[in-house]
C-alpha cells in the first residue's frame, strides 16, 4: 500500500449505525401513512387448477372491507420474462398462487374476509420435475409456452442477450481430451434466502397514472425501472425504506407491488402488502432449480478441451428473469473454465412449484453448484489437484468471454492466482488435500474432507449509474444517488469515497434518501456493482463539483483553478502554505451551492473473483456433515471498509448460500404441491453454536476501475460454497452425493447404510 487515504480502507461506523442499534431505523412495517389500508390475498390450495366460479359477495359485505379484486376485475398487467404472470389469473399454477385480493381497515379483517370468498376449482394434474415437464403429455402450464418451455432470450439485457454457449467444435475438443467425464448433478433444493424482514410495499396513487411506492428494497431505482413497463408506463416514484435483508430477492417483487397498486387504485387510499413469514416462505419467489447433464473433456495437464451440457433450469410457475439469470450463468461458466470448445444448452422450464426470482448468485450459483462437481469427476480421472486446476483455468487478464449482452469482452481484471495461493496457505490446503475420495483425517466414525471451488462475475460494471454531488457553503456535501440500504453498507461507503475526493470529515458528507423522485438514474445495487458503478458515478460527481468550485474560487484567490486545493471545507494554495485558507462560503456566499455531475457507463471487462476452501466433518454413524472451517479468498482491488467487506463474506454461509450444500432446502410434497417446511422451525438455518471457524483473505491489487482501484465482491461470496462443500463431503466419505443438500439421509444412503426417506 503506497497511497495514503484519509477514509478509504479504514473501518468507520456505518452512517445509519446509531439508528440501527437504537431501533429508530424505519423499516416498511414501521410506516403508517394516514388512511392506510391493509391488503391480503386468498391463495390457491391446489398446484394447478382452473377457477370455475368465484363469489366475493360475503367478503365485500364484511365490515371494514374496502375492496375485493379477482382475476375478473384486476388490471391486466403482466410480470416476468417475457411478460406472462398476471396479478391474478383464471388459472392457478402453484399452491399459494393468488386467487383474490382484499383491502381492509386492519390486516385481521382483510385475512378474515379472504376466508369468506368461495371458489370452485377444476383441478388439473401438476408437474414438478423438469424432465417430466418436458415430456409429451405433461400437464401444460401456459397456452403461450407449449411444451412448458419458456422462450429463450432476456430482453432486459438487449436483443443479443446470451442464450447458450456455442464456441469452437466440441467433437474435436473431446477427441483431444485425455479424460472425459459425464454425469448429472442437481442443485434443486429451492432454498429461500429468507431475509428476516418479509417483503413489503405500500402503494399510493397521486394521480391517474402517477404512483408512489414505499418499499423494503435492495434497489428503489430497479423497482421503478421494472414497475413502469409492468404497470402501463405509470410514472412510478419508488422510495426505499431501510431494508431488512434482501439477498437479491427484493429487487423485483412485481406481484406484491402490483397487488398493492391495484388495491390502492380500487380504494383511492394507500394500501400496504406485507407478507407474513408463512406467506413469504410458502408463496414468494425461490431460487431456480438447476440440473446439469454434462460432459467435460480435459488433458493430462488440466487443459479443458470441451464442455457440452444440457442445462435444465426449473423456473417454476413463472419466470421473473430466469433467462437473464441463464445469460449471466453462461457468462460465468466461461470465467471459471478457460475452454475453446463449448456446446452449452440451457432449457428454461415451467413447473407447478413457486415462481423463480432473483436471488444472490443470479444464475451463476445455480450453474456452478452443478457444473463444478461434474468437472471434478474429470479431475479425479486425471488425478489432478483441484486447486492447481482452478489456478490454471480461472480467467486471466487478456482472455475473452461472451457476457450477458451476447458480446465478446476481454478481461482487464487482476490475475487471481495469487488470491488462490494465499487462500490455500491460510487454509493449509497442501497439508489437508489427500487426493480424490480420500479423507484428511479419520477418527472413529468421524471423517473430515476438504473441498475448494471458485466463482467470478463480470457484472461489477453492469449498466449505468448517475450521481450528483452538491457542495454547500457551510463546508458540507450532499451526494444524490439512488442507493438503498439492505445491509451492504453502500450508502456509507459511497459517502466515504466522496469524503476522500473532497477531503472532508465523514460526518460532513450525507446522502439523499433512496427516492427515485429526487435522484438521477441508477440501475440498482445488484451484481456487486455498488463499489465500481455507483462508486465511479459519485467519484466523478465529486471531482466535477470540486472542479466547478475551483473555477469559481480561482479569480478571488488570484490562482488558476488547477492550482487550488481543498480540505475540510477550506480552499487553499498547496504551494504556499503560509497563505491563509478561505472557507467555501467566501466563494459561494450563503445563497449558492455548487453541483457536480457524474456518470458511469456499462463495463463488462472486470470480472471479480471468489474462492472458498471448506473443511467438513462427516459422522458416518449419523450421516451428519458439519462445516468446521471455511476460508474465503479474493482480490477486491482496494478495500473500502474492512468490517463491511468481512460481513459480506461471512454472509456466504446463510441466505441460500453455502448452507444449501448441507441443510437449507424447501421441501415440496409432490402429492399435493404443498411446501412442508414453510416455517422457521422446519426450515433449517445456521445458529450461533454451529458457526465454523471463518477466515477471510483479501488482496488489494489495484484494478483499472476508478480512482480507488476497487471492485465489488459481495454478491458472489455465496456462489462457490456449495460445490466446495460437496467436494469436501466426497473426499471425507469416498462416495459421491450427486444432489443438494447432503442431508444425513442421503449420506447414509450413499454409505450403503440404512436410511433415506426419499
Amino acid at each position: 500500500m503506497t497511497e495514503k487515504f484519509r477514509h478509504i480502507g479504514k473501518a468507520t461506523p456505518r452512517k445509519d449505525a446509531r439508528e440501527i442499534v437504537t431501533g429508530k431505523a424505519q423499516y416498511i412495517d414501521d410506516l403508517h401513512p394516514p388512511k392506510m389500508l391493509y391488503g391480503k390475498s386468498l391463495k390457491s390450495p391446489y398446484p394447478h387448477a382452473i377457477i370455475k366460479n368465484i363469489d366475493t359477495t360475503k367478503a365485500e359485505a364484511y365490515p371494514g372491507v374496502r375492496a375485493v379484486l379477482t382475476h375478473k376485475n384486476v388490471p391486466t398487467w403482466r410480470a416476468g420474462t417475457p411478460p406472462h404472470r398476471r396479478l391474478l389469473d383464471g388459472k392457478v399454477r402453484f399452491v399459494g398462487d393468488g386467487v383474490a385480493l382484499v383491502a381492509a381497515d386492519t390486516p385481521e379483517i382483510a385475512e378474515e374476509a379472504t376466508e369468506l370468498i368461495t371458489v370452485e376449482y377444476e383441478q388439473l394434474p401438476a408437474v414438478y420435475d423438469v424432465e417430466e415437464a418436458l415430456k409429451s403429455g405433461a400437464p401444460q402450464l401456459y397456452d403461450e409456452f407449449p411444451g412448458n418451455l419458456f422462450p429463450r432470450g432476456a430482453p432486459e439485457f438487449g436483443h443479443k442477450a446470451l442464450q447458450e454457449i456455442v464456441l469452437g467444435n466440441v467433437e474435436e475438443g473431446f477427441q483431444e481430451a485425455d479424460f472425459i467425464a459425464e454425469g448429472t448433478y442437481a442443485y434443486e433444493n429451492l432454498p429461500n434466502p429468507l431475509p428476516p424482514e418479509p417483503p413489503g410495499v405500500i402503494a399510493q396513487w397521486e394521480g391517474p397514472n402517477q404512483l408512489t411506492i414505499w418499499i423494503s428494497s435492495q434497489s428503489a431505482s430497479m423497482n421503478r425501472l421494472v414497475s413502469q413497463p409492468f404497470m402501463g408506463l405509470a410514472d412510478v416514484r419508488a422510495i426505499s425504506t431501510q431494508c431488512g435483508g434482501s439477498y437479491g430477492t427484493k429487487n423485483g417483487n412485481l406481484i406484491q407491488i402490483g397487488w398493492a397498486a391495484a388495491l390502492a387504485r380500487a380504494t383511492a387510499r394507500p394500501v400496504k402488502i406485507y407478507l407474513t413469514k408463512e406467506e413469504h416462505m410458502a408463496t414468494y419467489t425461490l431460487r431456480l432449480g438447476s440440473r446439469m447433464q454434462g460432459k467435460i473433456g480435459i488433458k493430462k495437464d488440466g487443459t479443458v478441451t470441451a464442455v457440452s451440457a444440457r442445462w435444465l433450469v426449473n423456473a417454476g410457475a413463472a419466470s421473473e428473469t430466469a433467462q437473464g439469470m441463464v445469460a449471466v450463468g453462461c457468462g460465468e461458466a466461461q470465467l471459471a473454465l478457460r475452454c475453446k470448445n463449448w456446446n452449452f444448452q440451457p432449457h428454461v422450464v415451467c413447473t407447478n412449484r413457486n415462481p423463480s426470482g432473483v436471488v444472490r448468485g443470479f444464475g451463476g450459483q445455480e450453474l456452478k453448484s452443478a457444473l463444478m462437481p461434474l468437472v471434478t469427476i474429470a479431475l479425479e480421472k486425471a488425478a489432478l489437484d483441484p486447486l492447481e486446476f482452478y489456478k490454471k483455468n480461472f480467467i486471466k487478464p487478456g482472455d475473452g468471454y461472451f457476457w450477458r449482452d451476447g458480446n465478446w469482452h476481454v478481461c482487464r481484471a487482476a490475475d487471481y492466482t495469487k488470491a488462490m495461493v494465499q487462500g490455500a496457505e491460510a487454509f493449509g490446503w497442501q497439508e489437508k488435500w489427500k487426493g480424490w475420495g480420500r479423507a484428511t483425517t479419520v477418527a472413529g466414525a468421524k471423517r473430515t474432507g476438504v473441498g475448494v471451488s471458485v466463482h467470478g462475475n463480470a457484472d461489477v460494471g453492469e449498466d449505468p449509474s448517475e450521481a450528483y454531488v452538491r457542495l454547500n457553503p457551510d463546508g458540507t456535501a450532499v451526494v444524490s444517488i439512488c442507493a438503498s440500504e439492505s445491509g451492504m453498507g453502500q450508502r456509507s461507503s459511497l459517502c466515504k469515497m466522496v469524503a476522500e475526493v473532497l477531503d472532508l470529515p465523514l460526518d460532513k458528507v450525507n446522502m439523499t434518501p433512496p427516492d427515485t423522485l429526487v435522484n438521477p438514474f441508477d440501475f440498482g445495487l445488484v451484481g456487486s456493482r455498488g463499489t465500481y458503478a455507483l462508486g465511479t458515478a459519485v467519484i466523478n460527481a465529486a471531482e466535477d463539483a470540486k472542479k466547478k468550485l475551483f473555477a469559481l474560487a480561482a479569480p478571488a484567490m488570484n490562482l488558476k483553478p488547477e492550482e487550488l486545493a481543498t480540505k475540510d471545507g477550506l480552499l487553499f494554495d498547496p504551494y504556499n502554505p503560509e497563505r491563509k485558507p478561505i472557507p467555501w462560503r467566501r466563494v459561494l456566499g450563503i445563497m449558492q451551492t455548487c453541483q457536480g455531475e457524474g456518470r458511469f457507463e456499462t463495463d463488462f471487462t472486470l470480472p471479480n473473483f471468489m474462492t472458498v476452501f471448506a473443511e467438513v466433518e462427516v459422522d458416518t454413524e449419523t450421516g451428519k456433515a458439519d462445516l468446521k472451517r471455511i476460508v474465503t479468498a479474493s482480490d477486491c482491488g482496494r478495500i473500502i471498509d474492512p468490517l463491511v467487506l468481512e460481513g459480506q463474506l461471512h454472509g456466504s454461509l446463510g441466505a441460500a448460500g453455502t448452507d444449501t450444500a448441507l441443510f437449507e432446502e424447501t421441501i415440496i410434497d409432490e402429492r399435493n404441491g404443498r411446501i412442508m417446511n414453510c416455517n422457521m422451525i422446519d426450515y433449517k438455518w445456521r445458529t450461533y453454536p454451529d458457526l465454523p471457524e471463518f477466515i477471510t483473505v483479501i488482496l488489494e491489487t489495484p484494478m483499472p476501475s476508478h480512482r480507488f482501484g476497487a471492485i465489488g465482491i459481495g454478491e458472489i461470496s455465496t456462489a462457490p460454497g456449495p460445490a466446495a462443500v460437496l467436494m469436501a463431503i466426497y473426499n471425507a466419505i469416498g462416495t459421491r452425493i450427486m444432489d443438494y443438500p447432503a442431508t444425513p439421509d442421503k449420506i447414509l444412503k450413499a454409505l450403503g447404510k440404512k436410511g433415506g426417506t426419499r
Partner: protein
Amino acid sequence: MAAGDVAKTRSHSRIAAKTDKAAIVLTVNGERYEFEIGRRTDAVDPAQTLAQTLRENLRLTGTKISCDHGACSACTVIMDGKPILSCMTLTVECDGKSITTIEGLEDRQTGHLHPLQQAVINNSAFQCGFCTPGKIMTAKALLDRNPDPTEGEIKEALAGNFCRCISHYGVIRSVKEAAGKRSETHD
C-alpha cells in the same frame, strides 16, 4: 430506573387487577402505561401480543416482528430481567410487568448509548440490522446475569437469534467488548 418505581407500579397494578379487570398496567422503559382491554382502536385486544402492543399502541417500533411464531428471537424484550419473545406473549398476561425495549437502553439524560449498542457500532456487527435489536436485548439479558461470559456462553445465549446476513462473528466480538467495558463503567 429506581427499584422503588417498579414496586410502586406493581402494587398499583395489583390493585387495578383486583378492582378492574378491564384494564392493565405496563411499565415500559420506566414509563407507566395503562391500557383498556377490548376491541376499541386504542385498547388492547385480549388476542394482542406484547410485540403488537409495543409496536402499534406505543409506536415503539424498534422491537421487530419477524417470524411471529417464536422461532427467530427478533422480537426479544426484557421483562422483569428476563429475555422474552414478545411475539409469543399476550399483553393481557403482562399486567404489572416491567419491560425494557431497545428504545430503553440509551441513557436519556446524557444521550450515551449502552455499551452493547456502542460495541455493535464499533464492530459494524450488523448488516441489514433487522434482527439487531433482538440480538442486543438477548445479549443485554446475558450480561445482566453473567457479566463475564465465555464465548460458548455467548453463542448459547444467542442460539435462538436468527440472522441471515451472518453478522454472528461481529456480534460475538461486540458482546465480549461490551463485557470488558461494563466492568469499568456502569449499568
